[in-house]
Structures are given as C-alpha cells and as structure tokens.
C-alpha cells in the first residue's frame, strides 16, 4: 500500500483535498495543468460577500499545502483516468498509479465571444466579470482609453440559462459577483451611474441578499429586470444597449461607457475525456454527475473515484473547500476499509 491519492486539479477544492488527505496520513499528488496552484482564484481580486481579498484565502491554502508532504506536479495534464480509480494517464502518455483518484478539475469560464450579439472582443469597452477582477487587481476599472467610466451596465446570466449556447443551467455565483462588482465600481467611482440587467437575482448564500440590498439602497445601483438583447457601438465609441424593462413592459435603450458581462461557469473542457471512463457519468450540462445528489456528492460509481468542487456543478469557494474535506474523508474511509 503506497497511500498515494491523485488529485486532478490544484484549485481550492484540490488544495483542500490534499491538505485533509495529508492530515489523514495519505500521500496526495496534485496534478495541475497550469504553471502554479490556485485555479481560478488566482484571477480574483476580492471575494463576495465579505470583500475578503482573494489573496488571503489563496495564500492560506497555499501555505497549508506547502506544509504537507504532498507532491505537486504543475503544467501537467491528465488525459485519462483508470477505470477503477487506480491511477491516471498523463498527456505525455506516462502512467501514474494510485490507490484512489479525486477529480477536482473545476469549471471553465464561459467564453463571452460566443454571445456574438454583445460584441465581446469586437467593441472596445465590453468586458467580462473576469476582466473586471483583473482590472481591480491592477488598480481599478478603466475604459480602453484609460478614463474612468461614468455609466456602466452589468448584464447577468451571460452563458447561463441560455439554450442558444447550450448552457441551460444556472451558474449560481454570477448574481452575487455582479452585485459585488457593481458596489466596487461605485466605491471606486462614486459619481458613476450603474445599471444591472438581470432576469432573477439568486442570492443563495449567507450575506448575499444583504449585499444585494446594500447595492440597491446604499449604492443606488439601478436594477432593471430584463436581458440585454444586443449591444452595438455608438459614434462616440460608447456601447448602445437594448433591453426590455419587463416590470414596465416597454423596451428600454441607453448607451453606456462600459458593458460588463457576468459570465457563467461551464463544464470543464476535460470532462469529456474523463467521461470516457465508464464509472464517470456526465450531466447533459457536461458537469460530472455524482453517485447521489443528496448523500453521495463526492462519490462516483467506482469506490476509488471521487469528486470535489465545481467539477460536478457550479459552487462557491466555501462549498468547494467543504467538498475537498468531504472527498478526503471518503477516500480515507474506503482505503482504510480495504486495508483492514
């Protein structure tokens, strides 16, 4: 018995899985496709709803992983998972054996250019919420010409709840991300008028609804219920948008300095390859389907194959970290039972 457990993905779920497995006496190997650990969290500035710097959460996890005996292989990709979770094949063709595999490979950010009608990548000043996090890390929101925007529109549900781009699911966290960023823009530019175009506001977490209310009352963010149907450039390089104010029942149009698309979470591109394993089942959305949605969220139909984090569905950071802990304990239970 080597005690080696392979964790595919070094984001928050994968890192937490490694930390807990190490505590339980196993030898975690994190395989991360990027050059460093951290996953999508590396791209974030501050976290909802507490405005905690992402670096704080990330730094803490990294420090804790550092203290473990985990082996970390960065810039490495898994091409195949052994049927019974007894190892993986890496993209260079080499085989790595293990006693169990935890799939924590996360999600992909919806590519906003697929919603052609919003002109992402075509027009200046159409950005995604991911771009905005980068801007905040780099010192604040600026238009392409370097000026601060005076009018900003956020559009929710870009790449979520949308059959046209084959993303029928709700990505859950974009609502609160949009609210958080609207507040941050207003904090940076108090004179800015901010309009948020939404279909529903899904404030599922503790403190989320409170933040939404703060955005409305304290920050005077205008929430307009209706989806933007198209964006076009204006003669002065602003963005013209069309929507319906569905609470009034009339079309609404306006031009803004900046349009920010709240992009959703789509299934990780590696899920299809992982799905070639007969014990790994995919939802129609492309996320991995756990053994049981109520009592087996981190399990697959193979006893040595586990899931943690957003590889199975859109989740927030706390939920993903919890799944890392849960997966580690389930691994321990299985492997300890096999030992005795």
């Amino acid at each position: 018995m080597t005690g080696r457990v392979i964790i595919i993905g070094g984001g928050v779920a994968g890192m937490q899985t490694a930390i807990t497995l190490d505590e339980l006496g196993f030898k975690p190997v994190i395989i991360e496709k990027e050059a460093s650990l951290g996953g999508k969290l590396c791209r974030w500035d501050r976290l909802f709803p507490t405005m905690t710097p992402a670096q704080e959460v990330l730094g803490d996890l990294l420090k804790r992983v550092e203290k473990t005996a985990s082996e970390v292989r960065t810039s490495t990709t898994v091409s195949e998972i052994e049927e019974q979770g007894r190892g993986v094949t890496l993209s260079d063709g080499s085989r790595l054996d293990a006693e169990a595999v935890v799939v924590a490979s996360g999600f992909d950010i919806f590519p906003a250019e697929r919603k052609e009608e919003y002109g992402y990548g075509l027009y200046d000043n159409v950005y995604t919420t991911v771009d905005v996090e980068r801007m905040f890390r780099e010192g604040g929101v600026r238009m392409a010409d370097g000026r601060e925007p005076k009018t900003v529109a956020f559009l929710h549900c870009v790449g979520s709840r949308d059959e046209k781009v084959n993303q029928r699911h709700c990505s859950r966290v974009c609502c609160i991300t949009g609210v958080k960023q609207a507040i941050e823009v207003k904090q940076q530019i108090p004179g800015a008028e901010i309009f948020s175009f939404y279909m529903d506001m899904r404030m599922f977490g503790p403190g989320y609804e409170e933040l939404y209310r703060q955005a409305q009352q304290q920050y005077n963010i205008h929430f307009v219920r209706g989806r933007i149907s198209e964006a076009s450039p204006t003669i002065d390089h602003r963005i013209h948008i069309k929507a319906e104010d569905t609470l009034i029942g009339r079309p609404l149009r306006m031009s803004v300095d900046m349009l920010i698309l709240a992009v959703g979470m789509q299934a990780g591109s590696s899920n299809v390859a992982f799905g070639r394993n007969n014990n790994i089942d995919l939802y129609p959305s492309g996320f991995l389907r756990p053994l049981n949605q109520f009592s087996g969220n981190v399990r697959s139909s193979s006893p040595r194959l586990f899931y943690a984090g957003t590889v199975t569905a859109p989740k927030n950071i706390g939920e993903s970290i919890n799944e890392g802990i849960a997966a580690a304990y389930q691994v321990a239970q299985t492997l300890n039972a096999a030992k005795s």
Partner: protein
Amino acid sequence: MKITWKEYQKDIADDHYYYARSCIRQNFFPGSEAAFLHILGNDLGRDVLDDARHTSCTGIGYHSDIVPLDTIMTVVARQFSLMTEAGYENFVSSCITSFGIYSEALEMWHDFPEQEEKAHEYLYKATGREFKKPKNLAHTSDVMFHHRHQIAAQAKHKLINAQTGEPLKVVDHIGCHYAKIFPKVGVGGSEFPYVLSGMVEAWGGECIDYPERRHCCGFGFRNYLVQANRGCPVANSKKKLESMAPYKPDFIVANCPGCTMFLDRWQYAISEMEGTLYGQDGHGIPVLTYEEMAGLVLGYDPWDLGLQLHQVAVEPLLDKMGIEYDPGAKYLGKNGKFIGKPEDSIIGCYTK
C-alpha cells in the same frame, strides 16, 4: 480582433447557376438583375441560366397568410424541377424572401422527410414533373461576394471619394430572412453578416457599424401590405436612418429587395411627412443594390443600371466616385426614348 464572422463560412458554387428572379426587384430596381447577368456572364465568364419558365416563389403571399405551406412547397418543388430539367445543380435566388423560402423548404424537408415526399407527390400530380434538391443554394449577393476579388481586379472605380482619396462610408443592410432564420446559411452568420461588407471592403469602401445596424427595415409583409398599418414599418426604417445619419454615410447598400425599396422610398415619405432628410447638403442617402454597386465599380453607365428609378437621387454619390454621366440622359430609356420624369417633391429627394 474582428474574428467572429470568419467562423461562419458557407459553400458558394463557383459556376453554372440556375437563376431565380425576384418579383418586386424587377419593378423597383429593374437594372439590378440585368446587371447581375451581365457581370456574371460577360465580366466573369460564368454560366447562368435565366429561365423564363420559373414563377414567383409566392413568398409574399406565404408570409401574409394567403398562400398555404403545401402550396408554396410545391411551387419551390417546381422551381427545383426546372433547374433539374435544365441540367443545373446550383440554385441562385435573386431575393432574400425567396432565399429564406428555399432555405426553409430544404431545412423542413431535411427534418421532416414526409413533407418532401408530399412535395414530390403534389408536384407530380399537378405537373407531371420531378425534381432534385439543389446541391448548392445561394443568394445572388453570395455569388457577388464569392467573386468580389475578381470584380475588384477589373474595377474602373473604387468605393473611394475621388476628391479626398478617403474610402466611402457605406451602410450595409442585410435583410432579416438572409440569416436570421438560419444563421448557418448566411456568410458571417446572423449577428455579423459579412456578405455585403465583404464586397464593400474588397472594393475600397468602409462599412459603418452604427447602433441599429442589425435592425429590421420594417417591411414585415402583412404589416406593410395594408396601407393603414404602414406607420409601424416606416418607423423602423426611420429608426435606422436616424441611427446612421450621424456617421454621414455616402450610401446604403441593401441585400433584400424589400429593404432596398423601403430604405429608398421611405426617405421620400419621411421627407414629405416630417421634413427630415438624412443625407448631406439637403439630399437623401442614396440606396444601392449590390449589383448596382458592383456595376458602378465595374464602370457601367449609371442609367444602364437603372439608377434613375431610385427615389433618392444618386448623383451626389456618382460625383464623389468621379463617375462621368450624362444628366440629360437620365430619363432616356432604351433607344433614347423618353421614359417620363417624376415631379420634384417639395423637399427635393429627387433634385440634385
């Protein structure tokens, strides 16, 4: 970073076309179809069959709930049977409405083969004919787009202001039934159609990306047919004209017969009703079909292209392009026969 349209390409046949004409274009822009045949046949050396036996596609009736599906499907089947009989496989439609109808029939037959069986049966019972589906279905603008570089190589005039050397600013208007019904059948898809802007760019012009670029002209068939309902159709064209005017376009090039007619004729109606003109120096914005645009580029005489039948005077554009023309010949038709001169309107859409 303008990448998006390139993801959508369609196959356009290179030669041997069966040509299906448009109903309303022959009345409103009669030189366009002649120009298409001349450009394809004489300038590009392509084989096009202009078949007198084909009929209207009955699309206007279909979209106005007068012609039922079974009927229009059989009409489409008959056009295809004429193509089959003539030994052609590439069907080219001169009208966006028809192109939409043919695309719809092919798509429907693909999804519901029993409907195609019906079409075969109806056509055979009614006419004794049989048909094969075209190998390639294209709109005439697709064919012009396909040959845009050959046309550019033979250009006598570029879409360039002869005085300033600046590219002409062009508004392209696509027409809803070109790619909004089936985005895959249009060059560039539905959001960023490239079929007209590809020609404009290849011939030296510059397309304007204005806020209402993708908006419908308002034609809408049944909405427009009843006179009392025309307030809504004209308001759509007005919305587009208002949105493009600040960019000072030199002309509009339109893809669809109905849109070309609307954008041209409504400028007159709006000027009469509200006193607004959207062009420069008391003029309207000239509206061309893509064949007329290609014809000017290839050095055709503007009056041979039928530009005297436009409501908005084209002379300002001809002057900008440095095209020589005989003002006295404007209203002389075939063999120098006077075809009649329209009265000048109060505001002067006609006058130079």
